[in-house]
């Protein structure tokens, strides 16, 4: 992969190449642990931030669309959300999901929807979106069986529902969406 990060610029004020262990860790495994991505982002890695954007954008868009009741306003909110996240990446906590959501609430309030922060349904929508995006990385049959456990697909998935849930649990733990022992 061509490194187009800051380290490749002529000004060369730093590195963001795959030789950087933090970035390399993030790329070696598409389901890289969120903590290594967050550390890489804090160190200025655009690559790591790109992975986080791809992971959280779908949830953010669905959440923002419900919060603002407008697709176009939602798109604006989401772009601003990730811009602020990047600018504050050095201070990003391990719980990146909650941190991004709080930035989203902050912007929603500025855009005239302060009530979003007290809407528990929006919390559930966010976490649902985050889980839904993560599920996209499970094998198709496993994913379909979890989304529609009573279906023919679920019965023919080749794994039991319990095993499919454990596979999802492992993925969500690796991504820091749930902590070990929390689920």
């Amino acid at each position, binding site marked *: 992969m061509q490194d187009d990060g*800051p*380290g490749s*610029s002529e*000004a*060369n*004020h*730093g*590195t963001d190449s795959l030789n950087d262990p933090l970035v390399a860790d993030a790329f070696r495994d598409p389901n890289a642990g969120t903590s290594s991505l967050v550390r890489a982002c804090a*160190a*200025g890695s655009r690559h790591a*931030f*790109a992975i986080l*954007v*791809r992971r959280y*954008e*779908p949830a953010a*868009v669905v959440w923002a669309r419900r919060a603002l*009741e*407008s697709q*176009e*306003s939602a*798109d*604006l909110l*989401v*772009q*601003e959300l990730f*811009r*602020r996240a*990047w*600018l*504050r*990446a*050095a*201070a990003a906590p391990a719980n990146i999901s909650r941190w991004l959501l709080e930035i989203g609430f902050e912007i929603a309030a*500025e*855009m*005239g*929807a302060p009530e979003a922060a007290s809407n528990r349904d929006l919390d*559930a*929508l966010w*976490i*649902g*979106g985050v*889980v*839904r*995006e993560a599920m996209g990385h499970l094998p198709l049959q496993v994913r379909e069986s979890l*989304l529609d*456990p*009573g279906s023919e697909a679920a019965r023919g998935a080749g794994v*039991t*529902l*319990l095993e499919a*849930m*454990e596979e*999802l*649990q492992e993925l*969500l733990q690796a991504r820091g*969406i*749930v902590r070990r022992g929390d*689920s």
Partner: protein
Amino acid sequence: MSDHPTEALGGYLLGVLPAGDEPGVRRHLEDCEACRVRVNDLEGISELLAAARLVPEEAPRLAPHILATLPRAGQAFTLGRSDQPPPGARQDSTADDSARDRSANGHHRLRRLTAVIASAVMVIAAVVAAAVLHAGNSDKLPAVTLSPSGTDAVGRATFGRSGTGTEILLEVRALQAGVYEVTVDDGVNVLPAGGFVVDSAGTATVTLHTAATSGELQISESDGDSHSVLLRAMLPG
């Protein structure tokens, strides 16, 4: 293991077990600690799945635009502080949604155009300023060493007068990775001078501009919460 109703336990957790099978699974869970632990461990996942099923599938659309517009390390940027409303911010809560969206779009386009023009002006100003400062133009003022405060970072600032204020060539080393903002406190106002991004190498060389002609140059971390000054220098009078 063959005595454990593994097939049924998942259905039990997800509520899709045939009603007739449920009492048997319940009895098994009362007697079998291993299965009980396994089921308890997955109850949270069951709730997350319920939330996920309510969310429509959404493919990433905005990522390329988001990533293309991020400030780059070592690159100066104009400040977009969190206390400023984002593009499309609603000003009039009585406006109806469609009017709000049209207004947001219009504002967004206008702001985007303004941002493009501002960026172009900034780039031109930076190039001119760098040329002026490096060429030893008569407007160039002496380089000033930056005074650190609670940081190991070092650096210097070279100033040059311009018709609209002061050009600043900033060179910093050993600064922690992050986003920094630069301001000038002239004793009455704190005037913005832009900002810059530092990555893991810890260095940055950027050219900035401020409307101020005197006061204290201050570099602070832009983390949205605290703004303690890490490096400072007086603008030459």
